[in-house]
């Protein structure tokens, strides 16, 4: 009796077919490769974003250019004056933003400027930057904020 059972179980194959495993993994791999944004900028200004409720998501990440405004990071935890950073460099003169943004708009007319401003920055510098953006013609902007957690 027991011999018969043994024979039966030995006949059936118990392996999971692994031939398609690389294909599945490659599919996942390609998805993550496409959705990955590798280059994160090295922030030279401190940016702590404020909270807000009336927020929208920006779906088209490729259209977004970031402008960082905040106090410059110094050694240790100290911070200096408010500065503007675009890409990896601090902007020496605010009036240079116009040229930069104008060129970006030529490349991509649907550019959205996402302003990432530190919550303790004064709005004066923000107005100056916005004035430059208006002159450059990049009128679509986004005040980057965190989602307000209901308390």
């Amino acid at each position, binding site marked *: 009796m027991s011999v018969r059972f043994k024979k039966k179980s030995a006949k059936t194959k118990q392996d999971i077919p692994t031939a398609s495993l690389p294909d599945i993994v490659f599919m996942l791999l390609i998805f993550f490769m496409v959705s990955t944004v590798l280059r994160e900028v090295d922030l030279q200004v401190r940016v702590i974003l404020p909270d807000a409720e009336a*927020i929208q998501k920006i779906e088209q990440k490729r259209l977004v250019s970031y402008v960082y405004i905040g106090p410059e990071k110094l050694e240790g935890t100290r911070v200096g004056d408010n500065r503007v950073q675009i890409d990896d460099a601090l902007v020496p003169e605010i009036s240079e933003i116009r040229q930069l943004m104008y060129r970006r708009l030529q490349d991509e007319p649907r550019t959205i400027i996402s302003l990432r401003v530190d919550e303790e920055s004064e709005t004066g510098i923000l107005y100056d930057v916005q004035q430059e953006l208006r002159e450059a013609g990049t009128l679509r902007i986004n005040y980057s904020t965190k989602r307000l957690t209901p308390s």
Partner: protein
Amino acid sequence: MGLLKRRTSREAEIPTSSLADIAFLLLIFFLVTTTIDVDTGIYMELPPPLEDEVEPPEIPDRNILTVLVNAAGNVLLEGEFTEISQIRPSVKRFVSNRGADPTLSDSPDKAIVSFKTERQSTYAQYVKVLDEIKMGFNELRAEESRRLGYRDYDDYKTRLPEGEEDVVADTYPYRISIAEPDATNPSADGSGS
């Protein structure tokens, strides 16, 4: 004959059993480095730059709601000191007035909320007030969507067929004007502007 037999027995095959391992390694690398979080924020559209010859259009006073924020974070709404929590209902009342109250707006597409802060105000205050104004508009849109039989504005938006006009957004367009602060307050941020 013997030579031929040996040739056929020698199979040129690349071992594929490690392929899955290699792919897994790459997969794990991309999983770890991926940032899927999307940027969220308050979307605004700036007005085009003013040309010198063009006079700004005259807008009757009743169609403008002025919101002023000073450096200490106090809010003046139409010249009256107001709490931040009062901005939202005031904006809603102002925009959805439709000519009923002579001091408030004629119609939602004429109503403009003018928002201005001092240069010394902090960005946190700026966003807080702007958020309240925008939420006033959003709540009106939600009410309009509910009137049309939807759950809220997002529901309306997702069920809106492709290419169809967004009636709710047309009824309550975002008309928020970010005014320039007065030049009498020189900036003290040392930005070299």
